[in-house]
């Protein structure tokens, strides 16, 4: 559950990052689109307002700053008589009317306005009868032009029309004669925009502060409330219908409704910044672009607004949703894979820990080989057993380094490698070589790693069985040899007797069996102790072994009884008997020598009974019985003698 939750959390975080990335890319793409749209309106507005700039400056220089005009203006400044001023106004109107009518109107400019140095309206060519009002406080451009005596340009409100102003101070021979203004009325701007943005609906949203709050009372009705905000007005469709098409269009109405209902447009408009609002509704894309127009004081005066369909928004949206869906599916799949991988990884790690623990803690050596027989892993037990360090064995050829072959076996013939080459498990005992050169026997299990029917390596698990081997030898020795005298015991004697008896079928020579019983041994034991008895038995065994041939078997049959199996006595019964007797006497003679027992000398004798056997004329028991009987015969009569039957 914890792993599942962790996986789910990881996938969620990854998807959140992916989501953020896709969203940012979508936004980036959409912003580029909006920027392009915005550039259109910005460029259009700038084109409209700046396209007249050069012409107007030239007009100012070559049509207005001319001696007759300057003389009239100079006279205006000089006179205080209102009648004279009226006449001068009339003369100025008469003088410049052709220029106004033929040049400015041809350019689409209607507002041509002279001001006195005090900022009073002197002559409005677009409304000649309206003059004499002071504009200093309501028209920053006129104030600036007449106080700072600088050319001023920019959007501004006005007593009749808000619009884009070009205000020139008129200074002649150092004398300030007032200013003149050529303006593009908002209607001109709308008209020019309508030519440039013919494929779009567009509206000029004018702030009330530059329109209804400022214009003469009689001009207030040029404007009507904006459908978007109470702070803005638009041109009155009943007076001017330049934007009527846009305002009445279904597209504009639809976008305006959406802007009002879903986009806090009033607050956005108050920010006074450029902005674009992309709208998606019913799988249709729309855009409303707002280009902020500041007045000369840097305050928001108007917005040039365009409305249009923008199907690319839908395309981007579809792409965005597809990416998110595809991403979601991918991340779910990745999550599943990740979960399985984590599960597998945990399992593998667990197995690895188990493996490493087992391999590290086991007393068995574990060696991993690659397909070439090179060592790729070796555990601690192995390095301890072999006496190598890890670095000394990794990558080395195991066959050459540690495997000892009884003969000079080639690598291809190595039973371990060969077995594994055939993708079989090898189980057996082999001899390994330590770093010191010492050999030791191991029991090993070599199992190949098979993948896609190809041997990709193997694991060799081995253990040092040298000690076991020694123990086994000891056990075997104890089973067949007498622990006191180191002579074959009764079992081994019977075994050899049985074997000898079996051999007699193929070998015609006689064999003999001598049953030897030490005389007075009990007395020695009783009087001198078992320690002396045991010492005597060991010395007797030694003398018997020294006396007899290697092919003969001397065994301790029990207590102070020894049995000697003699072979190859010839095929003649008399000779065989004689030889057996002779051997018996040798034994007696050997036993009769003094024994040095701890701290005293001891002389011992023995009674020996013997018998011959050949082929299958007797059984083992019969042979033993015959010899035993013969020995008792001796013991019974005079001891220290031999009797062969």
């Amino acid at each position: 559950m914890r792993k599942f939750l962790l996986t789910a959390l990881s996938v969620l975080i990854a998807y959140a990052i992916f989501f953020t990335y896709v969203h940012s890319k979508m936004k980036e793409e959409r912003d580029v689109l909006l920027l392009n749209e915005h550039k259109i309106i910005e460029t259009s507005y700038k084109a409209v307002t700046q396209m007249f700039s050069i012409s107007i400056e030239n007009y100012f220089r070559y049509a207005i700053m001319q001696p007759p005009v300057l003389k009239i203006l100079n006279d205006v400044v000089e006179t205080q008589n209102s009648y004279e001023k009226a006449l001068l106004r009339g003369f100025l109107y008469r003088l410049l009317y052709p220029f106004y009518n033929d040049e400015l109107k041809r350019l689409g400019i209607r507002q041509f306005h002279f001001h006195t140095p005090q900022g009073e309206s002197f002559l409005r060519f677009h409304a000649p009868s309206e003059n004499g009002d002071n504009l200093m406080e309501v028209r920053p451009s006129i104030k600036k032009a007449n106080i700072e005596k600088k050319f001023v340009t920019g959007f501004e409100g006005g007593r009749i029309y808000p619009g884009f102003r070009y205000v020139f101070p008129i200074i002649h021979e150092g004398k300030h004669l007032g200013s003149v203004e050529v303006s593009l009325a908002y209607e001109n701007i709308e008209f020019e925009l309508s030519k440039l943005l013919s494929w779009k609906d567009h509206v000029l949203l004018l702030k009330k502060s530059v329109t209804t709050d400022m214009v003469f009372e009689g001009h207030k009705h040029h404007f009507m409330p904006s459908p978007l905000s109470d702070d803005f007005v638009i041109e009155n469709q009943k007076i001017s219908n330049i934007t009527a098409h846009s305002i009445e269009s279904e597209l504009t109405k639809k976008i305006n409704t959406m802007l009002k209902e879903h986009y806090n447009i009033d607050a956005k408009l108050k920010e006074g910044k450029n902005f674009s609002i992309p709208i998606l509704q019913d799988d249709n894309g729309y855009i409303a672009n707002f280009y902020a127009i500041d007045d000369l004081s840097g305050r928001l005066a108007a917005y040039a607004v365009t409305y249009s369909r923008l199907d690319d928004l839908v395309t981007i949206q579809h792409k965005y949703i597809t990416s998110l869906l595809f991403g979601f599916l991918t991340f779910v799949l990745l999550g599943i894979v990740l979960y399985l991988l984590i599960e597998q990884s945990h399992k593998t790690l667990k197995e690895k820990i188990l493996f490493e623990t087992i391999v590290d803690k086991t007393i068995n050596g574990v060696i991993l080989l690659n397909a070439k027989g090179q060592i790729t892993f070796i555990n601690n037990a192995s390095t301890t057993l072999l006496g190598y360090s890890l670095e000394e064995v990794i990558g080395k050829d195991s066959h050459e380094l540690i495997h000892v072959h009884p003969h000079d076996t080639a690598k291809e013939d190595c039973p371990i490698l060969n077995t594994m080459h055939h993708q079989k498990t090898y189980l057996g005992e082999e001899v390994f070589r330590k770093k010191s050169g010492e050999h030791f026997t191991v029991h090993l299990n070599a199992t190949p790693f098979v993948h896609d029917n190809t041997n990709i390596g193997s694991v060799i698990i081995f253990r040092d069985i040298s000690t076991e081997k020694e123990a086994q030898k000891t056990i075997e020795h104890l089973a067949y040899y007498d622990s006191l005298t180191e002579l074959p015991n009764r079992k081994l004697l019977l075994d050899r007797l049985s074997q000898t008896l079996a051999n007699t079928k193929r070998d015609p020579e006689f064999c003999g069996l001598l049953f030897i019983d030490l005389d007075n041994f009990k007395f020695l034991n009783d009087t001198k102790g078992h320690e002396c008895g045991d010492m005597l038995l060991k010395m007797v065994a030694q003398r018997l072994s020294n006396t007899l041939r290697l092919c003969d078997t001397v065994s301790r049959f029990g207590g102070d009884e020894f049995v000697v199996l003699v072979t190859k006595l010839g095929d003649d019964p008399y000779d065989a008997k004689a030889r057996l007797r002779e051997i018996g006497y040798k034994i007696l003679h050997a036993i009769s020598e003094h024994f040095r027992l701890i701290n005293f000398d001891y002389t011992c004798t023995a009674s020996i009974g013997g018998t011959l056997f050949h082929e299958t004329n007797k059984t083992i028991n019969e042979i033993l019985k015959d010899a035993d009987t013969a020995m008792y015969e001796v013991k019974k009569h005079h001891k220290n003698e031999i009797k062969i039957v």
Partner: protein
Amino acid sequence: MMRHFLRLFFIFSLTLCLEARSLVFAPLPFFNTNKVLEDFFPMVNYLEHALDENITIHYEKKYDDLIAAFKANQVDIAYFGPLPFLTLQKSFPYALPIITFHESDGKNGYRCALVKFGGDTLISIPQRELKIALTQPLSTCGYTNTKRLIESSFHLNLDALLYRYVGTHDEVALSVIRGEFHMGGIKKSIAREYASLGLEIIDTTPLIPGFSLVVNTQTMSAEKIAKIKSILLTTPKEVYAKWGQDISHGMSETNTNMFQLLKHDMQNINVPLSGSF
């Protein structure tokens, strides 16, 4: 019987059709749309609000076009000068003046003025070269009264001078200021507006019935006419004071007797429909 029924059906259908559309108001014919609309818009707005009915503005540049539209029942209410109204009424008796607007001096009539630019000297100009600017043939201050003023002031016959119709009173004033004409005939109140450009009044006529709102009794019900008359006559001063210059000095019910002298002039003077040059 059948003919009578069809006529009744036609009148009923026409009435229904006309009632279905919004009221149509026609201001003074003019060339400068904005200026005139600016003057009349507040009044139209006020009426719309008071009647709770949308009012459409019908615009014509010439009186004879406006008269034709009125006669074609395309206009319900129009702002007419006395002479154009008489011209209309002569051929369309359904035109009824209901409200006459006062002049700036508060009188319910106005005067026409003969004007010149103060900077011009007329004495040195030969009589045959004197150019006179007139508004329109049917304008009250147009041919008829200007002819009378030139005769009384200079003992000259307008027909012997160069004269031309230039359209509106403002255009007459401005064309005289520009020097395109030596004199012009316009309403006195308008001449005063251009005094600040050096326009001088040479002489004025006696009081002439003021500009009136003329209703089309064929397209409007008597109730609605009475309602409009009532609304306008009870309009507070602070409201109409904000209307256009020519209609901001108050109003009263039209006295049709004031039209008698003009009617007489109309019968005796034959107004040429185009200028002499």
